């Protein structure tokens, strides 16, 4: 018995870390299986890059959503705001009233305006976030249709030039069916994603705001007692999310080059699902920001898997729901095993280094 005492128990892994690791492993395993099952599609590096290329806006929206979710809130207006921004910028650019910089400022401005509105109403007037951001969603959709309801391609040469920028990786690539070698390419939106991931990850880990947000998300009452300005922290989390949605709108525009009413539709649901798969809980206070891109990748891999497998049309939505179900169950089972403190029993006995000492 005495021999046991000096063994200081190892510091227990935090929930955030554990969930993040689960998310990472799920993604890697799934991608591995995808590689084995559908090499035709997944073996091409471009497939991976295209996740980012084509869905940069979704990645960005997910980051913003991740921040409010860590703060214990929710923002379901992000998709609509993203859509509104694409249309507003498209109208601005097509009408010739502004150049690309104006469009960028406009997108930041719209995002900021929504963020400020949500933040103020939620943090300072203590209205339930779901309802306010639902109203924000309606507002953005309404403004969009009021602004312009038909699809609008941006044809401004300067913009088309920006949109066509590609970063090519000549040593990676594939030969296509015509026998032409096509190098992998990365679009400018991806750089924005990478930059934002780095900035936000640093912010959540090292900045005072980020840590305060974790504290607010974990327990609002305690955070207040600890001398954190809870309202201000919540306010900024929504402002940041709105701003991020604005950025995502701009990135969406430089990805597709057009304003559409359908742009960004249901992004909020996808962002929530992606974050949950990335180990960020809706309750708040738990999650690693890097889980957001991981979760998004998982979501996109599911889509690509369904496409590559050629799932029957009527089953596609069911299969993606089913896969989501499996991931959620996995997460939940691992977490509950850990709470029951016999998490280690999951390991087969031969993996254990020594048997636990019985009695004294």
């Amino acid at each position, binding site marked *: 018995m005495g021999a046991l005492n000096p063994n200081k128990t190892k510091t227990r892994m935090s929930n955030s870390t554990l969930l993040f690791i689960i998310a990472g492993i799920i993604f890697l395993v799934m991608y591995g299986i995808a590689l084995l099952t559908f090499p035709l599609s997944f073996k091409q590096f471009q497939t991976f890059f295209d996740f980012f290329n084509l869905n940069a806006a979704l990645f960005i929206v997910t980051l913003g959503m991740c921040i409010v979710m860590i703060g214990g809130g929710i923002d379901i207006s992000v998709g609509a705001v993203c859509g509104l921004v694409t249309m507003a910028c498209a109208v601005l650019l097509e009408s010739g009233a502004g150049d690309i910089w104006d469009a960028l400022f406009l997108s930041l401005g719209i995002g900021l305006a929504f963020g400020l509105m949500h933040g103020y109403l939620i943090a300072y007037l203590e209205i339930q976030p779901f309802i306010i951001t639902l109203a924000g969603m309606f507002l953005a959709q309404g403004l969009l249709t009021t602004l312009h309801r038909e699809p609008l391609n941006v044809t401004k040469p300067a913009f088309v030039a920006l949109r066509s920028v590609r970063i090519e990786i000549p040593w990676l690539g594939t030969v296509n069916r015509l026998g032409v070698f096509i190098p992998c390419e990365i679009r400018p939106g991806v750089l924005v994603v990478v930059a934002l991931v780095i900035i936000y990850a640093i912010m959540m880990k090292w900045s005072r705001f980020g840590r305060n947000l974790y504290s607010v998300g*974990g327990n609002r009452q*305690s955070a207040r007692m600890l001398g954190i300005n809870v309202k201000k922290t919540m306010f900024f989390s929504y402002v940041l999310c709105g701003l991020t949605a604005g950025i995502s709108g701009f990135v969406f525009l430089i990805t597709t080059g057009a304003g559409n009413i359908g742009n960004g539709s249901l992004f909020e649901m996808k962002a929530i699902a992606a974050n949950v798969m990335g180990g960020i809980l809706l309750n708040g206070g738990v999650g690693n920001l890097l889980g957001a891109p991981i979760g998004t990748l998982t979501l996109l891999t599911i889509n690509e898997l369904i496409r590559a497998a050629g799932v029957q049309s009527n089953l596609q939505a069911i299969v993606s729901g089913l896969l989501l179900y499996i991931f959620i169950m996995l997460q939940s089972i691992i977490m509950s095993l850990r709470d029951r403190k016999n998490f280690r029993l999951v390991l087969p006995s031969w993996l254990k280094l020594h048997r636990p000492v019985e009695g004294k």
Partner: protein
Amino acid sequence: MPSEIILKMEGICKSFPGVRALHNVDFVLRKGEIHALMGENGAGKSTLTKILNGVYEKDAGLIILEGKPVHFKSPQEAQNMGVGTVFQEIALCPNLTVAENMFIGRSRNAFVNWRQMNEKAAEMLGSLGIPASPTQELASCSIAVQQMIAIARAIDMDCKILILDEPTSSLDEDEVQKLFALMRELKARGVGIIFITHFIDQVYEISDRITVLRNGELIGEYETPELPQIELVSKMMGKALSDVSAMKKHEPPKSDDRVPVFEAKGLSSAVGVRPFDFSIHKGEVNGFAGLLGSGRSESVRAIFAADKVTGGEVKINGKRVKIKAPLNAMKLGIGYLPEDRKSEGVIDELSVRDNIILALQVMKGFFKPLSRKQAEEFANQYIKLLEIKTPSLDTPVKSLSGGNQQKVILARWLLTNPMYLILDEPTRGIDVGTKVEIQKLVLKLAQDGMSLTFISSEIDEMLRVCSRMIVMKDREIVGELSGADLTEQNVMQMIAQGGK
């Protein structure tokens, strides 16, 4: 030692809907003194300190800090002005690390220097002897350690005024002494400390001055050595306390030959208590003694199946029964008043009435609700019986004081008329008057034939009511004392030596 006044509060008033918490209270704190704030539950101690540290806003009055009138709108402002607080209910964030909990909300820097923070935290934890690592998630620490961390945080804040609201209620003797050493050191540095506790001995051990509140009003300020204990208690309660000492110890009827009311063999639960045997007879009051974390709460929780029971055999009146969930236990006539009132006892937003009838209602079943009239009758009956102070039956229980909340839970279990009632720390955080009332009630119930288990951190309290004491150490029963052997000396010895 008349030193300069650091804080002056004048004419403080505060009311909540339906309750007048403070009325015209003055309070003075000097530099380098430990000032005990005393009073019954609901006397307004916590409210007063919460006004001082910015959690509540006062309705009227004046706060003068170092000669300047101040008005705190948030705990943050108060912290910045040098008012640090350790709250009664631990106010830390369980999802952050230990180090973060010690430093969050304090720095004005835009960024966190983790290495420096962890180093400083490690140093602090080391010097206070707190068994936690800075990088550990707070949720993985025990309640006592969390409490120590909260104190460490407040101490480190370089404050001029430190408010300790019941810091010792979940600490054991050793830890209390460590805390006192710290308090003395801070005092020497010139910090003014406001100390709130229900342990009168501790007040006399450490404090310089005492302010007594009663029913939200100021009774007076006294030098500690000049105020005899008995007088303090009577000032707090507003009546002479002759009956405290007059309480007689209750002797159970000789009962060795009869079948016990409750009997357990090899009982164990999922939270890691070693399998134990236990039995109790009709009309008996027994106790589980042991240090915090010795497994005393876990044991009684296993009896009630509050944690998942993993093994053992249970007999009630000699008949084998299965207790898998609290509802089974309740239906077999067992009641359980949990240790943690806030998170396991009350349902804070529900009304006093609903809280009182809850257990009875659940036992009656989902399809048999009490009529409103019946419910009100029951509730009123126990409000009267236990003298629960509440504005109305419909008041949410969270707006009652701690002691009254505890009485509400007690009423809930008495209403179910159990044959065996487990009380885990029923007197924690409760003023002396109510404590005595509860002790008397326990003895009366036993006389009426109820069996009770009574757990308390205060051994003398247990000695007063229990006729038999089970001693625990390291999650294991190490011995049992009764009759003439049951003395404080013996209990202490048994806890220290672990058996024999």
